């Protein structure tokens, strides 16, 4: 249990991650999330209840839109998620995932994430004889089409953040600027990476990952050491703002199951 408590507020790293994701959401966004999505689910509900009341959010398993659920549940396929504004079918959502003009935000992750934000949920090592077989890519190829990709992971270490993914299952900025431009994909690519240590963005020139903020109590060197590629580190790195009392209060009313608590 890693609780950050260097202020009057006390919050978990997962709660901070949800708040950071939430802050990146806009009032006109339509977001989709997939498997095991407690953090983005809470981020979306938090945004709806604070600065983005008109945001639409799709739970990728049941495909319900704007589930009303509190407490938030860990499985994206839960029957209770059908208590919602609208029900789509999985087929509908897959259709919409073909369209960058409709869905604006997808929450992604990976067993491996590389410096260009490419994700791998398939296999670590040689594909034919993998050292670690992942669960599979589900909808990650859709990353290439959606408006903005927000990446989150609860593992910030050099096994997850690698120079090159062993298997590209969710396209980020591909092999960098020239390949990204040549592909002329409809999506805007990855915009943010949130981990238990920090938030990272992408340098507009090189499209490589760049440190943006370190979470309270985390050192820049700690992030550098936990990252398996050369992270761009600007000279001045602010500390990630702590969640406000209001954000924490709203979040905890949603998370009475304590999915994010103490993690």
């Amino acid at each position, binding site marked *: 249990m890693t609780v950050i408590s260097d202020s009057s507020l006390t919050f978990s790293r997962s709660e901070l991650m949800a708040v950071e994701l939430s802050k990146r959401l806009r009032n006109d966004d339509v977001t989709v999330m997939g*498997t*095991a999505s*407690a953090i983005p689910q809470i981020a979306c509900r938090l945004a709806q209840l604070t600065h983005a009341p008109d945001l639409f959010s799709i739970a990728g*398993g*049941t*495909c*319900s839109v704007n589930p009303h659920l509190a407490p938030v549940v*860990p*499985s*994206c*396929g*839960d*029957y*209770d998620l*059908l*208590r919602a504004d609208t*029900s789509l*079918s*999985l*087929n509908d959502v*897959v259709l919409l*995932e*073909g*369209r960058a003009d409709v869905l604006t935000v997808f929450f992604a992750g990976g067993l491996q994430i590389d410096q260009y934000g490419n994700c791998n*949920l*398939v*296999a670590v090592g040689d*594909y*034919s*004889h*993998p*050292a*670690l*077989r*992942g*669960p*599979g*890519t*589900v*909808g*990650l*190829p*859709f*990353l*290439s*089409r959606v408006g903005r990709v927000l990446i989150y992971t609860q593992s910030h270490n050099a096994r997850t953040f690698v120079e090159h993914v062993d*298997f*590209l*299952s*969710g*396209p980020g900025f*591909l092999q960098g600027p020239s390949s990204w431009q040549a*592909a002329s*994909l*409809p*999506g805007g690519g990855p915009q943010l990476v949130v981990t238990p240590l920090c938030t990272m963005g992408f340098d507009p020139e090189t499209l490589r990952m760049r440190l943006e903020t370190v979470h309270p109590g985390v050192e820049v060197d700690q992030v550098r050491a936990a990252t398996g590629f050369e992270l761009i580190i600007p000279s001045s790195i602010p500390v990630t703002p702590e969640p406000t009392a209001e954000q924490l209060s709203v979040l905890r009313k949603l998370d009475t199951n304590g999915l994010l608590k103490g993690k």
Partner: protein
Amino acid sequence: MSKVLSLPEAVDRFVPDGVGLVSVGGMHLHNNPMALVREVIRQNRRIKRLLTSPCGALNAELLIAAGLIDEIATSYVGFEHIGLAPSFRRGIEAGSLKILECDEAYITHGLYAGAGGLPFVALPKGIEFTDIPKVNKENYSFTTDPFTGDEVPVGAPLKPDVALLHAYQADAQGNAVVAGAHFVDRYMALASKTVLLQVEQIVSTKEISKHPQGTTIPGFLVHAVIEAPGGCYPTASHGAYEFDHQAIVEYLGMAKDDDGAKGYISKFVTDLSEQEYLEKAAERLEELRYGSGPLAVALSDRKG
């Protein structure tokens, strides 16, 4: 003409040993047709290829653990927030399980193509920038878009020989109500040559036709209807009961190696009849049953 069969009869008649492509319904820990899966294991029917929904779970994992699957076409097998699927993972790492690597969009559109007799389906831009089409040339290819001249990625139609599916209710003719999320189960029913449907409850045609807009699987697609109350356990049955987190954790605990997984199969599947299995689970099932909260009320017209 009644299509009602007992679980052993249905599997014996419609799932021949060495069957080609079998699709198994449900997604994540929801609506997995576990009674059918367990019976396939009891009758030791080998499956050349298993197709899951975009997210397979215990439905695929148990068949793999039982050593019945040669090759799996899937975009995910796992237990979501609970953990990875150990037998799936070990099988591929060891090379004993072959995989046709798929993505969610292909599985969905591929079933659409299979359902509709479309020769193939053109896929939205993007998949060609992943490594997936490189490792699965059987399902993915490229052709010319004659309207633009571009080369575009395409997927082969998915046409399962047999579908193993769960629904909430059906009548004896196979007209069925899906109580909660449909996942891709309806498209599996549309695309498959033979459909085996396990349901919580068999009701009269008169009863089922009270809610025609909720009855979305027509009987003419269904070959066998099996009454299997509790038959999704330990996964959830939408409209009936939640999944059993502790039972999944128990499986993951036992399945840490092949012997452990086989031990689970013996203890919870092959050493028991389905009835004996469910008698043991009866108490847990009662605890997991949906109450009468707002959703139960909102969806009450779906219930028997």
